[in-house]
């Protein structure tokens, strides 16, 4: 079980997350939706402490980071949380000096100290899973955006994380390339991969999310099963947000 409790995060005077608590059920996909600036990406980045909240708690299984104002969280806890999470970025962020295969192997070899042969076997399996086997030896610069993102998904899955964090995984892609990434994520969802995903791609959220959390102005406005939040939103702000996105077309506007 992954839970965030009473997370507060400010950048200077800008209070981005206001006492946010969410629970991410295992084996499901939780989508964080909301307008730009609603805090959904920041919240996602608090899970693996790429952003350190001023206060609150992050629980992943028995690993707990307790953030208290004025206290630095220990390096060991940060590393432990990051080893239980994998992350997919909006701009892929593949390592450009490594091939697709090496990108997937890197964490296994450098962080988990796996022998290279074992890491390579695992990496090839994952590249196969995301449909990128034939590009194993390609440099990232020679891959399309959709292909890069699929390799990035394989890289994030390599150490078998408890949760896959996806930060706008399709936003930098045109609809056709986005579709191939959505397919891969949908397949992972069917297999029961736990995911937490910040997105304003409503099609992506509607396709694979089992739970939805709607954020506005750094607060959780509404949270629940996807069918309920999309089909019968309770709060006026949720209703307005969903109707605006739906009006912009099926892919969801940027």
């Amino acid at each position: 079980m992954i839970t965030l409790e009473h997370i507060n995060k400010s950048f200077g005077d800008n209070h981005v997350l206001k006492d946010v608590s969410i629970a991410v059920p295992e084996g499901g996909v939780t989508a964080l939706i909301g307008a730009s600036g609603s805090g959904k990406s920041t919240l996602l980045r608090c899970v693996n402490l790429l952003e350190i909240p001023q206060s609150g708690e992050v629980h992943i299984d028995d690993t707990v980071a307790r953030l208290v104002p004025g206290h630095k969280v220990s390096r060991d806890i940060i590393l432990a949380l990051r080893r239980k999470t994998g992350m997919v970025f909006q701009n892929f962020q593949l390592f450009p000096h490594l091939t697709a295969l090496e990108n997937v192997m890197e964490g296994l070899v450098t962080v988990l100290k796996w022998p290279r042969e074992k890491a390579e076997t695992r990496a090839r399996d994952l590249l196969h899973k995301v449909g990128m086997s034939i590009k194993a030896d390609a440099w990232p610069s020679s891959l399309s955006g959709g292909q890069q993102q699929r390799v990035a998904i394989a890289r994030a899955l390599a150490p078998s994380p408890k949760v896959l964090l996806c930060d706008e995984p399709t936003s930098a892609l045109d609809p056709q390339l986005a579709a191939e990434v959505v397919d891969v994520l949908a397949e992972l969802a069917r297999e029961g991969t736990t995911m937490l995903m910040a997105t304003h791609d409503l099609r992506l959220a509607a396709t694979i999310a089992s739970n939805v959390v709607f954020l506005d102005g750094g607060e959780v406005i509404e949270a629940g099963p996807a069918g309920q939040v999309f089909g019968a939103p309770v709060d006026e702000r949720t209703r307005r947000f969903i109707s605006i996105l739906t009006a912009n077309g099926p892919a969801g506007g940027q």
Partner: protein
Amino acid sequence: MPHWLNLMIDSLPSLLWACVVFTVPLTLLSFVLGLAVGFVAAVVRLFAPGPLAAIVRFYVWIIRGTPLLVQLFLIFYGLPSVGIVLDAFPAALIGFTLNVGAYTSEIIRAVLLSVPKGQWEAAYSVGMTWSQAMRRIILPQATRTAVPPLSNTFISLVKDTSLAAAITVPELFRAGQRIVATTYEPLIIYVEVALIYLVVSSVLSTLQARIERRYARYGGYVGAAS
């Protein structure tokens, strides 16, 4: 055989000897040590707290703001007044190392900053520590960008080592001076000395081109924006 050619051939062995025994080692050692100093200085300026970074800024300010020749004289002729007596070669080595360190620290700082912040985050997201991310992800990318400006520094350094002649290091230029003192043929000998520097620099430029080609294989930084 014309007189000038004869003279050049006669003096070549002692000039090459001075080049191989003093100029090349002085260049290589001070470059490698200078790079280490430059890397530490760059990392301190980028990541360390204020007071340490201020010390590094002071060091770079002093070295870049004063002539290299004056620095060498201070180390070799000046320091004995406070009880620090150094041989000519170590004095030159220290002078050039400090000089290379100051200049390369600025280059290294810039190329480390040129690697997108997202690469740090990607490295952290797979569980890397700061030093793992630096060694495996950031440095390899920064190195590629650093090859042209560092090659510049290196080739300048080869020629700057001629200043060590002024503090009695018997390197290539000083060996030339000695031959001129006995042959009274400054034009021929200094042309020969210049040609040897030119050959060494050209070899290094070729090496630089080869290193750049090797790095070119992985193409650009697609998708690494923001």
